[in-house]
């Protein structure tokens, strides 16, 4: 059980736990806070996957910006504790549970199948990161530089399109909120 494995198990159990709490708690403010914790633990998992830059970006973008918006909006609504958190309909609920369970089972099954397949095909892939470190795995800074080089050569078009998307979103949001007055405006 190398240091990384322990870390992985801690962080993954944290993220799953907080993920579940996000869905289960009735008051949305708490669920958003659990989501923040889940995000941070996912950032941690990225760290264990030797992708520090992605982890940093995750913290800045997700934890630092998106969820701040969530919390702010929730505060706007000033919602009291919700009585019934879940949509009604016993049978559809059951169907949903079964569907989601099946989905998870299949993905996990597919993962095992494919991974063993991948393992079979390419042996030199290390089973875990610690081992990888010894094999002179590219240190973090290099990988970040590699990412950005790749981003600006191979994925340049996607990069520009994203710029456009990021132009459209604020315009859309402003248009949507163009309704006069504050949140309690009489219409």
């Amino acid at each position, binding site marked *: 059980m190398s240091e990384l494995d322990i870390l992985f198990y801690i962080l993954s159990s944290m993220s799953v736990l907080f993920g579940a709490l996000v869905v289960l708690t009735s008051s949305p403010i708490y669920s958003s806070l659990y989501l923040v914790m889940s995000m941070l633990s996912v950032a941690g998992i990225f760290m264990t996957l030797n992708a520090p830059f992605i982890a940093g970006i995750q913290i800045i973008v997700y934890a630092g910006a998106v969820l701040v918006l969530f919390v702010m909006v929730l505060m706007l609504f000033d919602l009291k504790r919700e009585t019934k958190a879940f949509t009604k309909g016993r049978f559809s609920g059951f169907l949903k549970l079964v569907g*989601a369970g099946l*989905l998870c089972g*299949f993905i996990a099954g597919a993962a095992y199948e494919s991974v063993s397949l991948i393992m079979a095909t390419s042996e030199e892939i290390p089973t875990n990161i610690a081992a990888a470190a010894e094999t002179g795995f590219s240190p973090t800074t290099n990988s970040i530089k590699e990412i950005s080089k790749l981003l600006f050569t191979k994925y340049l078009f996607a990069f520009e399109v994203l710029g456009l998307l990021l132009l459209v979103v604020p315009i859309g949001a402003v248009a949507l909120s163009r309704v006069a007055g504050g949140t309690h405006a009489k219409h």
Partner: protein
Amino acid sequence: MSHSVLLSILLLAPFFGFLFNGLRFKSKNVQVAGVVGTAMVGISFICSVLLFSQLASLPEAERSLRAEYWNWLNVAGLQIPLAFVVDQLSAVMILVITGIGTLIHLFSIGYMSHDERPSKYFSYLNFFVFNMLLLVLGDNLVLMFFGWEGVGLASYLLIGFWFTDKEKAAAGMKAFVTNRIGDAGFLIGLFLLFGEFGSIVFETLNAQAPTVQDMSWNSNLTLACIALFIGACGKSAQIPLYVWLPDAMAGPTPVSALIHAATMVTAGVYMICRLSNIFIAAPNALFIVAIIGALTLLMAASIGLTQWDIKKVLAYSTVSQLGYMFLAVGVGAFNAAMFHLVTHAFFKALMFLGSGSVIHAMHEEQDIRKMGGLKKHMPVTHWTFVAGWLAIIGTPLFSGFMSKDEILWMSWHSPLGSWYLWLMGVAGAGMTAFYMTRLMALTFWGESRVPSDVHPHESPTSMTLPLIVLGVLSVFGGFLGIPHVLGKILPGHPPNFFEHWLDPRLANIPGLAQANITMEWIGIAISVTTAAVGAILAYRFYIIRKDLPEKVTSKIKGLYELVYNKYWVDEFYFGRIINPIVEMSKGLWMYIDVNFIDKITYWTSDMVKGAGSSVRSMQSGNIQQYALLILLGVVVVIFAVVMG
């Protein structure tokens, strides 16, 4: 002028006449329409005379002028050029068509003077002449068929000219339908020939015709000939499909003269002569032609005995004369058939025009029982009619005698013919003599039974002139083709010009024995005597002892009824063939269409509607339901992938 230009003028002149009159069909001016129509056909006549002279100047061997205008149809194996050929056979035909056509156009100016649609009438006539020329000059079967159809259409239009009268319109329809049945046979024959020889041009067909005779019954060749003969029956009114001709008398009389006497009805004979080599190679088919021809002439002649309408009598006589032509063709005497066709055109056209002027004079009265003694009132018509009568009953030295006796001799003499064919021919000749004399007696000689308010007068010169010309032709026409046996005894031995002219073009009968002169003389003698007996008998019946006809008819009541009602052929057709088909189609419509097809359509539309409503319930607007469906979809896909 080169023959192709002449040919194009010959063809386009009547077409132009048709267009000119057609476009101003409302105008009531008979003079303009009539003059233009006649002029056009006149021009064609002049062209055909010039062509005839050019043809005559050519040496014997390659006597044919071919003019190809453009490539009309060029499908894989089938090349049909729009080409016309004038050779000995078609030269004779175009001379007859345009010659008699001009005379009849001239006649009908007078006849149609007080009709309200003269230009429409003349445009139809010109249209008919154009199509007939097309049929005759056609270089291949398809072009001929084109003319064949056009002529059928023209005859329908002209028969039903006074379509306001329901009965006349029905007659037009009847003619058209029976022709169509015949045309179907023609087409099948055309296809079979094309299948057999790979070409439909007469030149190649005649060249490729097998020299040895094909004795089997179901070979392509025989079947083709039989099918073509069915087409000929339809067009030339033979046994099974003759019913339309008597009813066709509903049209104006010059129409009957032109179409139902001289030109259209002879198309069948011309077609068989055109394909003489093919037909010679199928003796069984020729045998059928001969039998049908003989039967038709006997049956038509017998019906002619009992008719009271002047045009009906002439119609049945035309049918029987056509029977003679087909008898001649059936026994292989193509030459005799063509000569009889020409002479018949002369005297039959004459008689129809004569009856036309009689009806004109009698103010549309056609029943000969109300006529009589018109000799005094209409001398020119009477004398021209007498010339025609003499020709048709076969008095020696007249045109009728020359051609009919040749046919009778050949039906006996030809290896294809036999004694009973000759006997039927002679019997027919006797009956013809009887009913023609009866007609003459009842209309012209005897005491006048004309009702008091009607006082007949001679027709104007525009009508009598063609009568005179035709009269001359029917008297001296015979000298064109004097039979050999006569030629020898006549001074100066005039050769048979007609036979000499047509021979290279027509096939000659294989194994024709040398003519036995004495037998021929015996034949001539027998036929002349039967004709004389018939004439005298009729004269006695209707002029001297007027009571005799009633006595005779009362004795043979059953037979007389049968013959008088035209053997109930029309009724048979309607009862057994036409009505059952109508009933069957009604039944079919009721059973299949209503409750089978409709059912299916209604059923499918209901199914679609049902499916639509069930799907609509899915769009409930509940977003989470959509998400659930998506999820289940994904699960299924993954399941498929993992399991697959």
